């Protein structure tokens, strides 16, 4: 691990140099909120925000991604043959991803990169990407990353972590990919200021006001939790829209669709949401998750119980707080996790008895 100091007046210049070797992405303010996008030549990421409204997951998992293409034109020899859509596999770097979102890529990776199955689309994008994180010195009151397996200076999932030191950035190079990027940007001024990271981290963590408890989730019986009495109350307000799942950095569900225009067809994958009634409709018309309560329970059980049990890697949540801030009816995962974590099956029996 190496520390380098980047004078702020060399920042844009460094990114410009790196742009020769990388496609750069970063947060940019649109009409009224920031989102990650490909940076134009000379454009720099904008950090006058705490985080982007939508998560950067679309960088690896676009909302709508063409996988295969084909022709229905029978005069062509290759008609009806599925072919891979050409992809840009050149290196790219995401500048200014927050540590919570970087950690989320590792949780998503558990799904797209398994010993049995490797998703070439997600994994291809992941392998080509260098993640340059920006430490989070002013977390929001709805952020709870420190109790969701990461934190404002968390390093997992990052190749380089940058902190703002006023007139300079201090960058911690964490991986070979991070080193290669620093070289491409010409960031070489070695610094010996590990203490700055430690104190920045401590100060940022001290600013966190939200927390969740998850210590009982793994030991609580799955079916008892599934049958807990609070689900109707939690689910009542839910509109079954996709705001929470679409803004979540760890929600990875997708649907595959074929679309044909004239004789040209594509097979694409699109974000899907367990909140949508059609998510689980069978071809028979039967829907095993036919009610709102079942769907809301699925979302929280997946994040806070099934994932916990299956992967033993904590909860499927990094505490970014987007679902809390964006939910149109204020369903709050902090409240739900409290109910789930403090649930005692014996209590339920007592109530029923």
């Amino acid at each position, binding site marked *: 691990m190496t520390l380098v100091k980047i004078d702020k007046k060399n920042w844009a210049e460094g990114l410009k140099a790196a742009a020769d070797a990388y496609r750069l992405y970063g947060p940019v303010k649109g*009409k009224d909120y920031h989102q990650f996008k490909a940076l134009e030549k000379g454009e720099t990421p904008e950090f006058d925000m705490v985080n982007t409204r939508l998560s950067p997951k679309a960088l690896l998992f676009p909302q709508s991604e063409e996988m295969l293409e084909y022709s229905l034109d029978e005069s062509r020899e290759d008609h009806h043959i599925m072919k891979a859509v050409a992809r840009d596999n050149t290196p790219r770097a995401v500048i200014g991803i927050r540590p919570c979102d970087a950690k989320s890529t590792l949780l998503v990776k558990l799904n797209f990169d398994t010993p049995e199955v490797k998703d070439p689309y997600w994994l291809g994008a992941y392998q080509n990407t260098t993640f340059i994180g920006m430490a989070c010195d002013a977390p929001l009151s709805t952020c709870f990353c420190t109790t969701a397996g990461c934190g404002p200076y968390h390093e997992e999932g990052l190749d380089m972590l940058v902190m703002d030191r006023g007139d300079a950035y201090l960058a911690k190079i964490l991986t070979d990919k991070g080193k290669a990027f620093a070289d491409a940007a010409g960031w070489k001024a070695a610094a010996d200021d590990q203490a700055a990271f430690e104190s920045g981290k401590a100060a940022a963590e001290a600013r966190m006001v939200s927390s969740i408890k998850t210590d009982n989730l793994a030991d609580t019986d799955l079916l008892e939790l599934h049958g807990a009495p609070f689900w109707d109350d939690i689910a009542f307000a839910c509109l079954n829209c996709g705001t929470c799942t679409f803004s979540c950095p760890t929600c990875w569900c997708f649907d595959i669709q074929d679309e044909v225009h004239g004789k040209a067809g594509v097979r694409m994958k699109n974000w899907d949401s367990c909140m949508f009634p059609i998510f689980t409709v069978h071809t028979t018309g039967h829907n095993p998750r036919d009610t709102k309560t079942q769907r809301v329970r699925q979302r929280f059980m997946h994040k806070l119980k099934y994932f916990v049990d299956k992967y033993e890697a904590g909860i499927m949540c990094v505490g970014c707080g987007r679902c809390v801030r964006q939910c149109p009816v204020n369903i709050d995962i902090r409240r739900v996790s409290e109910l789930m974590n403090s649930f005692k099956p014996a209590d339920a029996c007592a109530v029923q008895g």
Partner: protein
Amino acid sequence: MVGYTEKIKEIASRLLKECTVDMVIGFRKGTMPMMNEPCFATTPEAIDTLVWDSNCGINLANYLTNRKEKVAVIAKGCDSRNIVTHIIENKIKRDQVYIVGVPCTGMIDKRKITGMVAGEILGVSETENTIKVQTADAETLFDKAEVLQQNCALCIHRNPVIHDEMVADAVQEQTDVDRYADIRKIEEMDSEDKWRFFDDLLSPCIRCYACRNACPLCYCPTCFVDEAKPQWVGKGQDPVDVRTFHFLRAYHCAGRCTDCGACERACPVGINMRLLTRKLEKDCQEQFGWEAGLSLDQRPALDVYQANDPGAFIK
């Protein structure tokens, strides 16, 4: 509306105690400033969590669709008009719903206020006419009138049009409101500018369907965008499909929309899709003299033929 909360608790408690209804649908205090959560109360503990203030912008008529119980619902002016529409459209029976009317002085615009102060908003409190916003470094006082949701600023039916009981005396209705100044501006554009305008308006859409799902009118068992046999609309981010969703949804709300603003409020990316529904509202008014949800005794404009219906568009 200060003081409504206690009155609502009192009414809810009585209705449940006397078995007038099986549940009361209202709001409980949210976990964030400027947010309340729709909830149901069947117990004294739940009644105690009920609240009313200027953050009750979600339309509770949405929670009545196809209910089997006898329910009481806390309804502001726009909610009450959607309840009328629900009754007309057979989504709930009149004698099944006990309407607790709330004379409303408007809901505040969370996004607008967020844009008006620097830093994260940590607390918001209100009096009858003022809104106090607290951040870590400052406290800002606004006139409520300047931070209302646009639909509330333009509202001409603040008092419930139908009710079984009122929470308070009627409030004064706003008059001299020009409901369609922004719509006229769009009408005046040439088709190219209009195209650009709508393109820009809808470009942030992520198809989460929060607008549709927050809307009490959108109760189709399967929405046309969700139909699979046959599939009507593509499911990706093709702008043609995104536009098709928004335009068709708006048309499906023509003559039914009460401009409650739930769609715009729910949108996570800040799209003002009310521009579409209000254009249709304006057309319904100009062509059929129709305003949605005001009476149980009249069929909606697009539901009935009348000899004097305008026919100039039929060539």
